[in-house]
């Protein structure tokens, strides 16, 4: 099995990542160093004055709010606009938004800060400086009006885009003074509102991007049209680490619409044609020979064997420990053990990956949906070999991202193709099959849990050993600390934004890193998905092993974790935990912390013939600290059960001959409306911190349902997906 650790690092990722890391690391500094405009008015493309980088006000009072983060369905576009508008005191009905480009950001010394949109950070790591941007613009607009009236600014207030001089009752509008405001020196500091005084933020306002989405007007990357544009279809080597050996272009010569066949890097081939359909049809007919290399020997079975060898002893990185687990386990009156596993998962965003590139000798532009505009920009620089001032990325709406569009492999490919056809815009679109088989998969892991109890059935020791893949090892080696990937302990760590929610007298949580060649990625929820499944399933197992109620068992371990306990108790109370369930209905619980937020779920299910599961009802609680748009939080929470339970029931990508076997939704299914449980979301912001919302809840979906399944059947499921165990939705 020596071939296992062989890795093929995509050449692009490292450089893209350097920019990404810089962005994360400098987040706070950026917040304090946002240039709020300047003496000379900066103008938007239409000539309207920029009050500052975040706010453009047009003469008709339209407020254009710049959104640096990406919108992929999670609602950040609307939430960030609410935060700016709250401080700006503008008329919400006049708000529109636009995405500044990464090239503009670089040219303006990163005035908009970090563009990356992952880790449920869209709001929580930019809320401070976007609110300051809105507040500074308000101060400048008021000052401009006061100057015009020759009155003290302190006598003027702004509300609903109207500035009023209170003593005289004189009024003007933002649109009338924006030009003058844009020339003022920005305030050195601004005071932000206490969230309890919010009027727009904190409310479940409707999304700003809905009207275009219901009439087919929204332009996603796949919809880009440029004059003279051609379309490309691509096939990359099915086995990561393999190479393109040869292809027989003569066999498709004369096929309709075909313009060119090009090699893309060392591993892929693309057909460029007038339409995508022609490009794809010709590519399917193109004979291709791959050199699949050593990794073609790898299978799911060989990976599983390798990972299982990491469950016992050997070298492992310690992520959390206290007391002396080995001694405590040796002295335990009762021991409980269990081994779990969690598979590769594909993001499978509804919009297959795509990017459109236009390359000329002195310029390279890309149009695409990306979760990380600056990483995409870095990919354009590297692939085009042009300097930053000759490149740009135009960000479009994303037809889903879920972490996949934070990577830039598809952007690089588009540029490499366009480079071979200078002056012609090329839209590269992946087929669903390419998307399924060339993912950046949720990392594969196994886990062994060992618990020790004293004579009074108190938990005295817990050893959690995870064996498996590190995302950072492949995508972001700069994030490793002495070889350890700290993010593998997401939801298991003693401190940070994803801490372990239990206190155990003797605790050891360690990780044996094993990195198969399948490239891992940040799959919505990331490492808490498997970590929560292991911890929360085993909590249930331990409780039953000592004949205790799973809620009471957890409660004893959560005295020092009041916020975790609060969400757990909220779902328990609402689902009726401790009271009889309707006949044939069984319940399960789970809680976790991830991305700075506390989440819990309670599930009610029924099971027929031991194999047909109906998920009847979910109660889910979230404490994100502050809730900027509760209606969108409810939608993220409900949607999280579709993503999480799809992963549990239908997911799982398997490896055969080194390649991913699942190719489309017929082999990698996704939940439909008839399988959707009723989700009752409890949004319970307790204040004082900013947590994320898009990802944390996914991780409690599977364990809550699996614990209910045990309650229903007495059978413990310790591996995913359920389809492999002939368990399906009823």
């Amino acid at each position, binding site marked *: 099995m020596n071939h296992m650790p062989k890795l093929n690092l995509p050449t692009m990722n490292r450089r893209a990542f350097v920019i990404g890391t810089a962005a994360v690391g400098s987040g706070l500094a950026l917040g304090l160093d946002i240039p709020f405009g300047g003496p000379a008015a900066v103008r938007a493309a239409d000539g309207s004055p920029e009050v500052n980088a975040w706010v453009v006000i047009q003469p008709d009072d339209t407020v254009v709010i710049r959104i640096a983060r990406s919108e*992929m*369905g*999670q*609602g950040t576009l609307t939430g960030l606009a609410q935060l700016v508008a709250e401080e700006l005191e503008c008329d919400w009905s006049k708000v529109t938004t636009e995405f500044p480009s990464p090239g503009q950001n670089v040219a303006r010394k990163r005035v908009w800060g970090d563009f990356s949109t992952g880790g449920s950070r869209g709001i929580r790591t930019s809320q401070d400086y976007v609110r300051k941007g809105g507040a500074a613009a308000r101060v400048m607009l008021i000052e401009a009006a006061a100057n015009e009236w020759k009155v003290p600014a302190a006598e003027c207030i702004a509300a609903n885009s109207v500035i009023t001089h209170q003593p005289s009752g004189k009024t003007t509008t933002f649109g009338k003074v924006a030009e003058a405001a844009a020339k003022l020196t920005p305030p050195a500091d601004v005071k932000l509102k206490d969230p309890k005084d919010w009027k727009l933020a904190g409310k479940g306002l*409707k*999304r700003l*991007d*809905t*009207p275009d*989405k*219901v*009439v*087919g*007007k*929204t*332009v*996603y990357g*796949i*919809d880009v*049209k440029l004059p003279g544009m051609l*379309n490309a279809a691509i096939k990359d080597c099915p086995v990561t680490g393999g190479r393109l050996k040869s292809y027989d272009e003569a066999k498709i010569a004369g096929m*309709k619409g075909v313009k060119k066949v090009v090699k893309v890097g060392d591993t892929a081939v693309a057909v460029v044609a007038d*339409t*995508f*359909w022609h490009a794809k049809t010709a590519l399917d007919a193109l004979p291709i020979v791959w050199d699949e290399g050593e990794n073609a020997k790898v299978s799911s079975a060989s990976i599983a064997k390798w990972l299982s060898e990491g469950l016992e002893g050997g070298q492992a990185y310690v992520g959390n420990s206290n007391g002396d687990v080995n001694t405590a386990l040796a002295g335990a009156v009762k021991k409980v053990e269990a081994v779990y596993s969690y598979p590769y998962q594909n993001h*499978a*965003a*509804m*919009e*297959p990956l795509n990017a459109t590139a236009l390359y000329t000798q002195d310029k390279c532009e890309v149009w695409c949906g990306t979760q990380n505009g600056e990483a995409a920009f870095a990919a354009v620089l590297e692939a085009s070999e042009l300097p930053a001032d000759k490149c740009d990325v135009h960000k479009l*709406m*994303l*037809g*889903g*991202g*879920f972490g996949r569009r934070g990577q830039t492999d598809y952007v690089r490919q588009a540029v490499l193709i366009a480079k071979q056809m200078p002056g012609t815009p090329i839209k590269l*679109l992946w*087929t*669903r099959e390419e998307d399924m088989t060339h993912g950046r998969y949720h990392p594969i892991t196994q886990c062994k849990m060992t618990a020790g109890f004293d004579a009074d059935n108190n938990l005295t020791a817990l050893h959690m050993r995870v064996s498996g893949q590190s995302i950072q090892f492949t995508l972001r080696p700069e994030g490793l600390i002495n070889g350890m990937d700290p993010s593998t302990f997401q939801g298991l760590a003693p401190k940070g934004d994803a801490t372990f929610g239990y206190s155990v007298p003797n605790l050891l949580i360690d990780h044996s890193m094993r990195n198969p060649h399948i490239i891992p990625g940040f799959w919505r929820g990331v490492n808490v998905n498997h970590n929560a499944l292991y911890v929360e399933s085993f909590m249930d197992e331990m409780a039953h092993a000592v004949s205790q109620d799973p809620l009471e068992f957890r409660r004893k371990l959560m005295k020092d974790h009041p916020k975790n306990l609060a969400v757990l108790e909220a779902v328990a109370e609402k689902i009726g935990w401790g009271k009889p369930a309707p006949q044939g209905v069984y319940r399960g619980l789970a809680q976790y912390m991830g991305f700075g937020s506390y989440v819990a779920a309670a599930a009610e299910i029924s099971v027929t013939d031991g194999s047909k599961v109906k998920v009847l009802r979910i109660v889910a609680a979230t404490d994100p600290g502050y809730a900027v748009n509760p*209606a969108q939080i409810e*939608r993220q929470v*409900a*949607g*999280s*059960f*579709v*993503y999480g339970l*799809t992963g549990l029931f239908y997911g799982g990508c398997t490896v055969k001959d080194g390649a991913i076997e699942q190719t*489309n*939704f*017929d082999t990698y299914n*996704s*939940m*439909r*409306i*008839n399988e*959707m449980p*009723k*989700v009752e979301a409890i949004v319970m912001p307790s204040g004082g911190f900013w947590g994320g919302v898009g990802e944390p809840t996914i991780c409690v979906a599977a364990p809550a349902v699996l614990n209910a399944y045990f309650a229903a059947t007495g059978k413990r499921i310790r591996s995913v997906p359920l389809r492999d165990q002939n368990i399906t939705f009823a």
Partner: protein
Amino acid sequence: MANLTINGKSIDIDVEADTPLLWAIRENAGLTGTKYGCGIAQCGACTVHIDGEAMRSCGVMVSDAVGKQITTIEGLAGNGALHKVQQAWINNDVPQCGYCQSGMIMAVAALLKDKPKPTDQDIDDAITNICRCGTFQQVREAIHAAANA
């Protein structure tokens, strides 16, 4: 060359007869509201109406659509007013990423034509589109809202 009638307009397009209707709509007619999701009629993102019936356009050849009335998301609204399903989608803030929602809306519009007051079971039976964001709860609420509009 084929002549198609899309959203009430006759259009001559230069495609082979076996081209999937999806690509003729997107690439030749230039109507990009209809989305590609899987190409094998699994996900429903490409759903359009053909003679009033919801069909997955990736699985329909152009030759089979000739002479029929094709309606895409761009043609669903009539006389300047949104279709009641589109209006319910706005009122209930249904879309998240929104990519699958053109197809979802077309499927729901066809359902409501057949069953003006669908039950939850009717919805479960008829609406089989994939939504990876998982906005099904809002879809169901909005269908009932549209039915009662």
